[in-house]
């Protein structure tokens, strides 16, 4: 009986940790996808720009960011 309880407990712990691992992996995948989307949509570039210059987000700083990005972006080809 004691052994059975221990096994059950062990089983529960194992299942719990497996669930946790799954949840953690899912969170990692999600955060990676979010990071990809943020990079593709230049949101990360804007955050880096703000961090580098120690500025807060505002219309003026975003306009500054866009000006800086303008030439770089306009020179990027899009494939057929």
């Amino acid at each position, binding site marked *: 009986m004691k052994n059975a309880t221990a096994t059950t407990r062990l089983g529960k712990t194992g299942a719990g940790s497996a669930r946790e691992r799954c949840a953690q992996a899912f969170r990692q995948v999600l955060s990676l996808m979010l990071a990809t989307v943020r990079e593709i949509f230049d949101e990360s570039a804007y955050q*880096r*720009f703000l961090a580098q210059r120690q500025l807060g987000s505002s*219309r003026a700083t*975003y306009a500054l960011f866009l000006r800086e990005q303008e*030439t770089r*972006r*306009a020179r*990027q080809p*899009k494939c057929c």
Partner: protein
Amino acid sequence: MLAACDSRADVSRQLRSRAELATIPVFTQTIPMPKLLPMLTWLLIALTGALAVATIAIHRGEQINAMWLVVAAVCTYAIGYRFYSKFISAKVLALDGQRATPSERLENGRDFVPTHKWVVFGHHFAAIAGPGPLVGPVLAAQFGYLPGTLWILAGAVFGGCVQDFVILLFSIRRDGKSLTEMAREEIGPLGGLVAYLAVISIIVILLGVCALVVVNALKSSPWGTFTITMTIPIALLMGIYLRRLRPGKVFETSALGFVLVMLAIWGGQWISQTPSVARWFTLSASTLAMVIILYGFAASALPVWLLLAPRDYLSTFVKLGTIGLLAGGIIVLHPTLHMPALTRFVDGTGPVFAGNVFPFAFITIACGAISGFHSLIASGTTPKLIRNEKEARLVGYGAMLAESMVAIMATIAACVLQPGIYFAINSPAGIVGQSPEAAANTISNWGFPVHAVDMQTLARAVGEQTLYNRTGGAPAFAVGMAHIFSSSLGGQALMAIWYHFAIMFEALFILTVLDAGTRVGRFMVQDALGHVCRPMGRTSWYPSILATSALIVGAWGYFLWQGVKDPLGGINSLWPLFGIANQLLAIVALCVATTIVIKMGRSRYAAVTLAPLVWLVAVTFTASWHKIFDADVRIGFLAHARQLAASHGNARLIFNDRLDAAVTGILVCMIALILLESAIGSLQVLSGRKQARVKESPFVATQFAVQQK
């Protein structure tokens, strides 16, 4: 035993050269037993892939399920990635995880930013995936599903992925230098000049052909025209919203733009059903061409934030979502392919475009198998983001595999249609006849039964007046995609919505390419003119902006106009020209790559880039020869010009044919020069007459690895 293994691995990580590594005694007894399970798994994948490819290749006279194509593709890509790309990484390129990449050494928070490999993968894929892998396979489906599928699989694994991978790596080792710069440094000044001219030419031809695809998709279609027209104010609104209301919230703005586009699609249905309003949006091909030319000029001259950037974000948002949706739809529905494996048109008499399978199938499908344009992106933004050299394999090779998968999906979308319907949509009136009855008769006589009534019913189901002669590939892809979506999501009631969603999706793609391409071309012309007249090189000087924009738009606008006025359907002759230009650029890229591989002292592995190079030279030079000199008036530009001249035809069309022949000839001569210069240089290196000196940036050890330790 394990400890011994770990210790050897640690030592290996710290050593850079193979010579040093060779001095370490190899304790064979410390190597663990080969893992049986992975070996069996890969064997199973290989066998499944072989079975799927055999099924595709051998089946004749009976229809097969689209899942065979999907399974063949997935298994081929998996094997290619696991084994071939690993071989290239280890033997040919000797990827070095200890070497700092430009993103680390030159980090500036703007262009050079060390980025997670999957993020770079997504970024790179979003940049290389355009309308090409959707349109090319649809056009090539006139040969049946087999030639296109085999070329997409083999071309990607041995050609396209290799090109993207090696160019990316070589650019990483040269501080993110562009293809043209690498050509100049590694091959010679002539190489650089030719690469520059080839890039300009391909951009101009590409834009003309892409615009023609949009014109063919939207002519006489009030619904489609309204939807696409609405994307302009939507993009402007997004630009203002992003700048004034929610600075920096691009994803949110794109989602909002997407909702507005969906509303525009829905509104388009009402427009098409309201005759008084519909006539405003029912435009002829010529009018649409003029509108697109004017739009291209405005998009090039307007500030980036106002139109180009928001449209690019919106296009990417729709693109990623739709590709995922299409993949899901194909897997859920696993439709049957109605197109035979091979059609009678392998003999070169096809109505969609003229010419034999070899070489024309291989230039018609460019982006899904190998595209020279990718080398511009692989030597553009991407090398400046890669954090570790070893990640170039996933990004360069892997992203191209994903692009190739998109081409397989496009093949499926075209081949799920009844062949008669496919040919009715894609054949120009000049070949099948002007009236619906004549077209149906001609196509039925080819052995692909289709009835005028069925075509009318289908046109009504998708909300169009007619689907005949809608050449260019986009409408056929849209019908196929609508068929897949409506069979898995929403039923037949939503067929028209899905069709116009697909049209909007492709047109949005293409207009983004048009915006970006015109601007890139403008900058290139400004850079070149700056050497002659300094003020023209100032990219923000308005007279220069207007003059160079007009020059670039005029160049591609001419090709567009020519395509619209061509009685044989325009796309018929222009798409092969685009394919030739694109593959010629791939030749430049592979030429640069082969030269560098030889200079690196790895000539024994040069076949990795040399084999696809030789194949592309054979394909493009043969295709160019046919396009210029073939006696068939549907293939040869000069033969067509002669026929027109003999019948006192339109002088403008005669001039167009001669111009196309001249452009093709000049492109081929330029590439022949670069090949010659590269071959001479390589032979001198191999014979020891010239010292091999690659222009790589000096080795700097990465700090990331130190931090990781």
